[in-house]
């Protein structure tokens, strides 16, 4: 039965140059000292390394597993030790380096026990596919398509023809020719196995060009011999030879020659019921399944005039090209270039260290005469030869124009994607135009554009989504704001009604007004109080944990943790002051309801009062029960203690710290005097206040219980307390904090100093504003008592702080100059610039009252810390 041959459209007849490598017999190459296994030897996802540096591996051991279904495993081809997993030159047109597993061979070539199987035809489809994938078999004809994928076509494609590709149309290459001569029986067995995997297609065709008579003869002989054996489907196997023409070995071209069918544009052969496998792959699959031997070596043609001998060799995968060439007497000087693959579809290798991989069918090292540099490209003369030569029926000349103009739409309309990059058009072009290069580049561009399009679509989505999210957040905020406004209005209205009711009462006093105000501000005091207390607790916990960590930490970490610690401190203070304010407010509010003048409208508040409020009351009461005088005296004594301590420290401290210490002592003394003054003032006022307090308390006939009553009284007292006094109170608190901070700053070691100073500075600013308020107030109330001392004390520390910063900066600058290495100095300088910039930003933010001030300050501190670190190196 003879198979009908359909002629190939187009095609060319380049010089075959196949004799050179067929002169010497197939040989087996030695094992190189080092083998390199690229993780990406196939189309699809690169394999995943499963060995580590230092592992001993044996021949046939899997060193990288398939990463997903569209991938293939990689096996060590000899025994040795994994010496590196790193980027190495790989055989790829880009010349890029890729990740490789490097094995230092030990020369013993020990291998794992290959576990074969008696009758592969009894194994089911799935396990066969899995075995093939784990044997790491990928198309050995050049493309490297994972065979397991190809042999597992979608179930709706009924495969009726299996084609084994022994065409090898590319000039110079004879690897498959030799394989077919040497292993013809395995090919026949292999293709029956493939047929079994594919569910027994009607036809199994082995296509061979008629320029390989020996191969054809060998195959036919084996076919006859094996017919006696019990191989399922062997009766359907045919060896088909057809006239030599380039590129009949292209998958689609071969299908056309053997079946007359054309693979649809953009489709796969499986879509028309055909699967094509290379002869090399067929043998590899047979070996993998029958003998359990993974793909660890292949036949490669080593050819070219710059070799002493040319021929085919069984090469261990991973052998460096340089090593392989040397075995054939490579004369590097006469070599024009190193080409992986054939002269038509191969590519230049920029680096001869690139290893032999699964797809390396040929290494071509032509001499300068053999393959001179191509002639310069000339203008297209529109001869049309290219269109005649194109096996895919394209219009290369049109494609060339569009490629130059980058008209992707037209390129696609002219089916650029069906170009198989065979190079036939370039070969015939009388103007020596490198046409294929244009197509390859254009294909790349189009793919890139598609990826970019996809990315930009995704970007648009993300952007629009973000836009929507921001809008929604805004809307929510707006709604909340509106709701708050409404609530406030409602409360105001209520308060107005209350005030109206209160007016009818005989003594409508400022207390009622204050109460109304407070009520309007707060919808649910209990809740707020609880919240604030929670905040304080949280902040305190955080502070504690931060401090702990900070104390445990060392070096780099310390600076980082310190800023965190400081932040936690700030937050705690913030939370505490908020809670404090709130308590003051609620203390002011609570007595109001039972005030005789407005008792009836506000009684519900008292009935509603639950636990937190009671607690707050108790607390407020405790605090309030301490008279301002007592408080001041307390402060004074603690101040005295601190002063003593500070003086002690100052005397102990060494020289450079002493200045700071003494400044701290000085400040403490000042504060002491001012505190003493205050105490005097308070003492003068005290009797007056007690009078008012006692005068007010008995007025309350509706008292509910004792503590409330007292709290009310105290609140009254507070209300009567002049704003100036209140300010004084807060000033005191601030000053205490300042003193503490200053103390810390003074005792801090060098690298923590800036952070401390920043904190001190902040406190000082606050004090200054409070003091200003006080002076203003005092100026209004008592022009006779100018608060000069306050003003003075605020001026001095502020200057000191800025002076300290200046000093630190000068020091930093000096240190930077001192450093020897220039690189180091440059680093320091750039850091300083960045510090300056950060400083400017910080200043600006502080000026604007930006709420990111903290962030900026943190950034600045961090930079400064880094600078210090650098300088200390």
């Amino acid at each position: 039965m003879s198979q009908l041959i359909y002629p190939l459209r187009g095609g060319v007849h380049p010089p075959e140059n196949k004799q050179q490598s067929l002169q010497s017999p197939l040989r087996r190459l030695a094992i190189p000292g080092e083998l390199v296994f690229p993780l990406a030897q196939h189309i699809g996802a690169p394999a995943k390394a499963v060995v580590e540096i230092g592992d001993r591996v044996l021949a046939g051991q899997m060193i990288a597993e398939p990463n997903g279904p569209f991938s293939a495993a990689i096996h060590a081809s000899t025994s040795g030790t994994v010496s590196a997993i790193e980027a190495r030159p790989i055989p790829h047109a880009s010349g890029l380096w890729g990740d490789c597993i490097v094995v230092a061979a030990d020369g013993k070539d020990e291998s794992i026990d290959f576990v074969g199987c008696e009758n592969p035809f009894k194994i089911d489809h799935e396990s066969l596919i899995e075995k093939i994938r784990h044997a790491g078999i990928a198309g050995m004809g050049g493309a490297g398509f994972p065979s397991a994928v190809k042999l597992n076509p979608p179930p709706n494609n009924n495969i009726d023809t299996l084609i084994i590709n022994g065409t090898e149309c590319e000039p110079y290459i004879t690897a498959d020719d030799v394989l077919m001569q040497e292993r013809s029986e395995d090919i026949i067995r292999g293709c029956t196995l493939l047929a079994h995997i594919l569910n027994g297609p009607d036809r199994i065709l082995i296509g061979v060009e008629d320029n390989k008579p020996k191969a054809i003869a060998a195959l036919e002989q084996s076919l006859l011999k094996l017919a006696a054996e019990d191989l399922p489907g062997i009766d359907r196997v045919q060896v088909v030879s057809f006239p030599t023409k380039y590129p009949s070995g292209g998958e689609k071209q071969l299908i056309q020659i053997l079946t007359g069918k054309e693979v649809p544009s953009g489709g796969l052969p499986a879509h028309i019921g055909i699967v094509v496998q290379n002869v090399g792959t067929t043998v590899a699959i047979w070996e993998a399944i029958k003998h359990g031997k993974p793909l660890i070596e292949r036949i490669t043609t080593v050819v070219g005039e710059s070799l002493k001998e040319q021929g085919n060799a069984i090469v261990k995968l991973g052998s460096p090209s340089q090593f392989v060439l040397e075995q054939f007497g490579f004369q590097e000087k006469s070599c024009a270039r190193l080409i992986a693959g054939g002269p038509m579809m191969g590519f230049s290798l920029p680096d001869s260290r690139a290893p032999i991989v699964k797809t390396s069918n040929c290494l071509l090292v032509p001499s300068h005469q053999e393959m001179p540099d191509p002639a310069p490209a000339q203008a297209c003369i529109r001869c049309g030869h290219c269109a005649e030569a194109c096996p895919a029926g394209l219009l290369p000349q049109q494609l060339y124009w569009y490629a130059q103009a980058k008209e992707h739409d037209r390129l696609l309309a002219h089916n650029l994607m069906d170009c198989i990059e065979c190079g036939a058009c370039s070969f015939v072009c009388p103007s020596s135009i490198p046409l294929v290069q244009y197509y390859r580049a254009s294909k790349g561009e189009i793919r890139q554009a598609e990826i970019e399009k996809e990315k930009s679509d995704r970007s648009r989505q993300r952007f629009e989504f973000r836009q929507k999210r921001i809008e929604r957040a805004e809307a929510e905020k707006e709604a909340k704001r509106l709701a708050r406004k409404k609530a406030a209005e409602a409360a105001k209205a209520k308060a107005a009604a209350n005030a109206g009711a209160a007016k009818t009462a005989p003594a409508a006093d400022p207390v009622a007004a204050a109460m109304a105000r407070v009520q309007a501000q707060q919808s649910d005091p209990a809740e707020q109080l609880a919240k604030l207390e929670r905040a304080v607790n949280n902040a305190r916990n955080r502070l504690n944990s931060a401090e702990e960590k900070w104390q445990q930490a060392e070096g780099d970490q310390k600076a980082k943790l310190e800023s965190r610690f400081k932040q936690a401190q700030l937050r705690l203070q913030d939370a505490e002051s908020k809670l404090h304010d709130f308590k003051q407010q609620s203390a002011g509010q609570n007595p109001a309801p039972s005030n005789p003048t407005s008792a009836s409208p506000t009684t519900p508040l008292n009935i509603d009062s639950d636990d937190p409020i009671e607690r707050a009351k108790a607390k407020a009461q405790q605090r309030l029960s301490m008279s301002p005088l007592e408080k001041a005296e307390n402060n004074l004594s603690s101040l005295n203690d601190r002063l003593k301590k500070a003086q002690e420290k100052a005397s102990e401290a060494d020289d450079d710290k002493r200045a700071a210490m003494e400044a701290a002592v000085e400040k403490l003394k000042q504060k002491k005097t001012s505190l003493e003054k205050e105490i005097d003032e308070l003492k003068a006022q005290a009797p007056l206040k007690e009078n008012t307090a006692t005068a007010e308390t008995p007025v309350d006939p509706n008292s509910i219980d004792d503590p409330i009553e007292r709290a009310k009284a105290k609140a009254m007292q507070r209300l009567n307390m002049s704003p100036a006094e209140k300010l004084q109170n807060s000033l005191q608190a601030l000053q205490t904090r300042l003193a503490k901070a200053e103390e810390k700053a003074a005792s801090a070691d060098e690298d923590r100093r800036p952070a401390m100073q920043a904190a001190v500075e902040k406190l000082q600013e606050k004090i200054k504003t409070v003091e200003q308020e006080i002076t203003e107030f005092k100026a209004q109330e008592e022009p006779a008592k100018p608060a000069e001392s306050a003003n003075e004390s605020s001026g001095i520390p502020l200057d000191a702080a800025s002076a300290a910063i200046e000093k630190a900066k000068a020091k930093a600058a000096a240190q930077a100059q001192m450093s020897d290495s220039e690189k180091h100095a440059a680093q320091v300088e750039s850091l300083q610039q960045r510090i300056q910039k950060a400083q400017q930003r910080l200043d600006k933010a502080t000026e604007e009252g930006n709420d990111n001030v903290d962030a900026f300050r943190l950034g600045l501190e961090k930079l400064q810390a880094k600078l210090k670190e650098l300088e200390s190196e």
Partner: protein
Amino acid sequence: MDISSLHPLVLALLVLGGLALVFGAILGFAAVRYKIEGNPIVDQIDNLLPQTQCGQCGHPGCRPYAEGIANGEEINKCPPGGQDTINSIADLLGVDAPELDAEHGTESELSTVAYIREDECIGCTKCIQACPMDAILGAAKQMHTVIADECTGCDLCVEPCPVDCIEMREVEVTMQNWKWQLPSPLAAVNSDIIASDRQTPQETKQEDTAA
């Protein structure tokens, strides 16, 4: 009344008027039924813009610029898109393609992505707020990082960083995004040309002698 008794002119008027009403109704229905949402030309232009959202065109994003173009604005203000984008918009609108307006920036050959030097980041989240792509991952006081795949290289996050720890890096060429370059028509010798196995001078000579 017998229709045929009408004056032919009146009859003609009636028939034409009736037809006009019928077609009017159909068209009116079609206009409502197959109404096109949005402004199709804006969508088309927006499709051509690179969606970098960098604002170099002077608009707060690519779509606003697409709207601007639809309203008659110049089409050469998008530097990230470059000449290719200008050309395709010109194609779409049927106008001549102008050069890129240098006032808005220059087209860069290499695409870039933002990179945060993570040990310097203080976690201020300012870059997150600036990024139009939500391509930065992080939280307050935590280290931040850029999702390189989502970053369009718009540059907007570099400026707000208080510690200057964001830099723009070139996208590396990998096996996945590498592509062949178009041969330069000016290069006399292109060393990457394949199909170079044409007859050598030597062979030609041999053939000559054989002949």
